[in-house]
């Protein structure tokens, strides 16, 4: 059994940067990565804003040194880039020196190629290589291959927008129980017509910059991203004299059991998830210094989450903000993106501003952090909620 679950490496690619350092610079400069969609041909181009990554698939393939006969979806490409950064950041040269697993997450999987070649598959042989890349596990298998992970536990979680938080949770539990010494955890999702149109039919896409926790919020911006973290046991940290970036201290998953897509009015599932995470961490609510909220800027989420935060923290709600106005909502990757941001917050004792906020919500009187704030941080709580009532909370800390 390992007492601590150490984070020893991180990698990320998002609309606000192609690596950890670039993401941090954008965060502290208040620079958002939201624009009109350019890489996907959609009729909704003028109705929505997205967080898009600049690189084309070809550029990403080149970075990974893939030959032209590869069948990587954009999800797999982004995931492989971020996961490789994480391994490098953790200073890992021999991945199989310790029992190493990979837990990735995705909601889109290879849908970007499926929607592109859906009917072409029937006639054009050259497109058929992507057929086997459709299922969600395919991107994970490719990332494992890119990292050189062999004969090990490799799996994929898909619980909509809480997916990557859940992959961190499972990774932490596998390390604590001693089943693995090291786990690469995270998530990846690319933009697709499928998700653009899906969220469009639910009428929760904003036609302008998203405004989390604002009274007049109009919905979310979709984004694409991938992020991975390396989790290691006490044994590995000691044996390798590893620099620890932060610890995964608590985690909780609960189901709202209210509606397939909407959150309950008072955020029952979210409340349970936060409380479970505090229990596992052995913390009281007052031990949390900053909450990186799910904060999608939909009418439903921000009200439900805000109420849940008040239920958990009472009168002493800690500083909180959503970073989704920077990156867009990156779906299955969001929990990992925000895990990286939470660790960066701890490392730099910084709380990020909740961009685009203008008007206080009338249902309650809590207000997100609006300006960049320096403050000694010991703990950060990160929330991720998804369809199917899936609610997840992870707590990161400086101390084991």
């Amino acid at each position, binding site marked *: 059994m390992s007492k601590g679950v150490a984070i020893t490496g991180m990698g990320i690619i998002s609309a606000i940067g192609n690596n950890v350092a670039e993401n941090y610079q954008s965060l502290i400069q208040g620079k958002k990565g939201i624009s009109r969609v350019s890489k996907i041909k959609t009729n909704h181009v003028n109705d929505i804003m997205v967080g898009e990554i600049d690189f084309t698939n070809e550029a990403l393939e080149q970075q990974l040194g893939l030959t032209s006969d590869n069948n990587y979806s954009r999800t797999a490409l982004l995931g492989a880039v971020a996961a490789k950064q994480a391994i490098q950041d953790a200073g890992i040269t021999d991945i199989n020196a310790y029992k190493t697993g990979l837990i990735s997450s995705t909601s889109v999987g290879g849908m970007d190629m499926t929607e592109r070649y859906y009917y072409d598959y029937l006639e054009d042989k050259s497109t058929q290589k992507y057929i086997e890349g*459709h299922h969600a596990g395919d991107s994970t298998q490719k990332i494992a291959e890119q990292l050189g992970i062999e004969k090990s536990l490799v799996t994929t979680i898909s619980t909509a927008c809480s997916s990557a938080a859940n992959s961190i949770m499972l990774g932490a539990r596998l390390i604590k129980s001693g089943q693995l010494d090291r786990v690469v955890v995270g998530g990846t999702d690319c933009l697709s017509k499928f998700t653009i149109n899906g969220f469009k039919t639910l009428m929760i896409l904003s036609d302008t910059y998203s405004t989390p926790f604002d009274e007049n919020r109009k919905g979310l911006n979709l984004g694409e991203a991938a992020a991975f973290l390396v989790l290691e046991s006490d044994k590995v940290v000691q044996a390798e004299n590893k620099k620890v970036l932060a610890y995964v201290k608590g985690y909780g998953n609960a189901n709202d059991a209210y509606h*397939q897509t909407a959150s309950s009015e008072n955020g029952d599932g979210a409340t349970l998830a936060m409380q479970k995470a505090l229990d596992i961490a052995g913390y009281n609510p007052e031990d949390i210094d900053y909450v990186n909220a799910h904060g999608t800027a939909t009418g439903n989420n921000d009200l439900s989450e805000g109420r849940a935060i008040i239920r958990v923290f009472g009168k002493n709600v800690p500083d909180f903000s959503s970073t989704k106005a920077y990156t867009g909502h990156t779906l299955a990757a969001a929990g990992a993106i925000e895990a990286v941001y939470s660790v960066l917050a701890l490392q730099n004792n910084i709380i990020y501003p909740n961009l685009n906020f203008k008007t206080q919500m009338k249902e309650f009187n809590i207000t997100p952090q609006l300006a960049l704030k320096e403050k000694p941080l010991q703990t950060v709580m990160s929330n991720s909620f998804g369809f199917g*009532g899936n609610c997840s909370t992870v707590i990161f800390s400086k101390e084991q």
Partner: protein
Amino acid sequence: MKNVYINSIASISAQKTLDNTSFLDTIEDYEANVLPVIHPNYKEYIPPAAARRMAKGIKMGVVASKIAIQESGLENVDAIITGTGMGCVRDSEKFVSAIIDNDEQYLTPTSFIQSTHNTVGGQIALELQCKGYNFTYVHASTSFESTLIDAKLQLELDEEKNILIGGVDELGEHTTEIQKLVHLVKAEAVKTSEVLDSKTKGAVFGEGANFFVLSNEKQASTYAEVVAIKTYNTLAETEVVQEAIHFLNGSNLNIEDVDVLILGNNGDVDFDAFYTTLAEGFKNTQQANYKHLCGEFNTASSFGFWLASKVLKTQTLPEVVKANHTDTTSFKTILLYNQYRGENHSFTLLKQC
């Protein structure tokens, strides 16, 4: 650490498996390249108005979970962990084709919502009003085994007492069509009795839902104990026997201790060698197959898990699943091995209680 038991089972498959009092007594003999399930009478379990809106995968998952919970004698479970390779793929097909055919217009959200991979797990939570832990694993042929790993971890550490796990996948017409083109699905219709020896490319595909209540407390209904489970993203054919022995040794067992070896071979000439190699290593052991009965799909191994549970509880091995003939009549320990197209291998070890 606590032991982990299978306290109830439920199977919806291409065979008559819904009734737990029978055990493959009569076999549906198909001649096809896809095997749809024999549908339960959904109305007995789900109000018709709700059932009409539900995807096939959701309906199968909800019914199988209700049967499993009923058999376990529980009112509810502490957690729900679902495995699915493709989710409700028919709704994914519907939504993608509607986007293309109607040029992104006139779309409705239902098929988008139901194409979310955790829609089955979410719907089961809704039906049961279960606010507990709820995960969905979507990792090809180890989707179901991932649920098993997760549940076992929590039950051993006594974090939860009763966990519903299951594997569910549905057939989709377009998906089958394109899978034929790349020889995942066999081009020709094959008889159930002949598919495992067909020596052609691809598999006969299927669908189904197999759900189980796992618990860290044994009860009268208990089928078996889950001793060990391990998955491998890669494994070479030459390593399969050695890895099986290593896996058994981890539970202080050897080849001789295994009473039945249940193999996930599907009759794909390109990938069945993994199974024949392992079978060769266990040549004195009773062996069994099952994918001729349920078809191949990402969570087909959950049917194998169902089969093993039944064998251990009833102490019978139906003739139709026997791959060889030995004089084994007592079934105490069962080893399952599965892989799909050379990837995502798993060993699962079950023991009689």
